[in-house]
């Protein structure tokens, strides 16, 4: 089985979000970038398929040279090879088109992407990719088993979960649950050394046309101060929620 794991390169969750150029660009100054958390759960699940079922695991990112340390980290965790499509990831549709070419050229059976990336939270790349390559698709995956060409997938739904069966070729949007937090791997020295020797292939993009374009950014208006209610006077909270906030 050939697995491709899509790796999004995103600001660390603790990052302060600021914009430059008249609020038209994300300010990467002082921002640490990491593997998108949802993708890390998927990558770790892919390592399981590699170790237990002999799968090969490649990772891919659509982005500029600045994303290579993130791909190297994925290699250090255990992926066999990395691919970087050398273009700025502008919108989800454009990224999905680039990835579709990578999947078709590499004849992958299973593509593991994240439920969403934590920067733009679009959650659209995996579904669009599946549709473009005419593979099956399951979103919000919290469990994945493969036997031969059959797949059993658990999907989180509003208020619960459902188990579905489908077949390869398959694209999933994964999240925590594919593996547990405690299963995540921190690359060790040996992994980091080996990652330096593994292939990281840079390929040139297709015509990168975008369908959507973020023209400017804004930050939420600053919040007013909290109204404190005395712990011995919860009646007051009930009345504030009813009369002032009007939410009960």
């Amino acid at each position, binding site marked *: 089985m050939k697995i491709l794991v899509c790796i999004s390169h995103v600001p660390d969750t603790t990052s302060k979000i600021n914009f430059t150029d008249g609020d038209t660009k994300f300010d990467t100054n002082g921002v640490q970038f990491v593997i998108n958390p949802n993708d890390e759960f998927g990558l770790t699940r892919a390592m399981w398929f590699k170790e237990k079922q002999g799968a090969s695991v490649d990772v891919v990112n659509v982005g500029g040279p600045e994303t290579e340390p993130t791909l190297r980290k994925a290699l250090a965790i255990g992926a066999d090879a990395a691919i970087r499509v050398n273009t700025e990831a502008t919108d989800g549709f454009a990224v999905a088109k680039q990835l579709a070419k990578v999947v078709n050229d590499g004849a992958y059976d299973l593509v593991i992407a994240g439920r969403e990336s934590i920067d733009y*939270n679009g*959650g659209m790349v995996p579904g669009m990719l599946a*549709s473009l390559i005419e593979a099956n*698709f399951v979103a919000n995956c919290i469990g994945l088993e493969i036997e031969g060409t059959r797949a059993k997938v658990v999907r*989180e739904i509003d208020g619960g979960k459902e188990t579905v069966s489908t077949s390869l070729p398959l694209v999933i949007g994964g999240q925590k649950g594919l593996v547990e937090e*405690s299963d995540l791997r921190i690359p060790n020295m040996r992994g980091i050394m080996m990652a330096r020797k593994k292939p990281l292939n840079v390929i040139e993009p297709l015509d990168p046309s975008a369908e959507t374009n973020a023209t400017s950014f804004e930050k939420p208006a600053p919040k007013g101060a909290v109204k404190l209610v*005395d712990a011995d006077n919860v009646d007051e909270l*009930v009345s504030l929620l009813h009369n002032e906030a009007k*939410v009960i």
Partner: protein
Amino acid sequence: MSVIVYTESEKGKFKKAAFEVVSYAKAVADQMGTSVTAVTINAENVESLGNYGASKVLSVNNANLDTFNAKQYASVIEQATKQDGGNVVIVSSSADSKYLAPLLAVGLEAGYVPNVVEAPSSVSPFTVKRTAFTNKAFANTEISTDVKLVGLSNNSFGLVESGGSTSVEEFTPSIPDSGVSVESVDKATDKVSIADAEIVVSGGRGLKGPENWALVEDLAEVLGAATACSKPVSDLGWRSHSEHVGQTGKPVASNLYIAIGISGAIQHLAGINSSKVKVVINTDPEAPFFKAADYGIVGDAFEVIPKLTEKLKAFKAQNA
């Protein structure tokens, strides 16, 4: 030309988000000088959509569509859009709508913007405001394709009754192979889901252990609220992963979010920030949550919450 809106139902009944997306579609249609066509799948009482501004309903009734399937549902909406000449398509932010929207976008060759929070600031160029960086910012985003797909953030626009009537047409699309089939569903039917809830009561590590969750559940019951938790609580196995909210869990956009024993870490706040009113109960007055909350009580949850639950019971009984 028309604005197409997909109105979700469950067991025939419209979800609340269905009325919200129609209200939103009506606002978009007014801006564009056109009308709203709603697409329903195995829904009853479809005339009720007229009240929120749908002037036409394409009503699909097909037993093969009783269980949700993203590919089949996306195909139905795609066919309806093409038949009606729709040039803007609106869907909600439910798990199912977010599942089908990317497939629909490819089918319609539509630029897709999810997590939209307001009516378009302009329809030419078509520009909408969406959340980005998990609610830490907004991005004003232009869609340049002929057909545009908008995913509306739940609870961001509200319901607007315009009191109109609607004409209903049966619509019989072709149904593609499913590709994915549901084997079993595990869903608590007696509980409100976080996505649908107007009020969410959430517990953190401050509650010390799973045996203390009756506090959260009792309060949630009085309020008709969904229950949620912080990430460590689900990592520790105190509560199921499906209750984990925040940047790496579920987003919350309720009217009221009550945080009990939650410190208010940046990743937690990012996910719940779109809730309209936030209340925190925490022993530590320095907890960062107090900076993000509208109302707060500095106090011990084990004392405050039972009292609050009692008071709310009395309040509900009086106002019933």
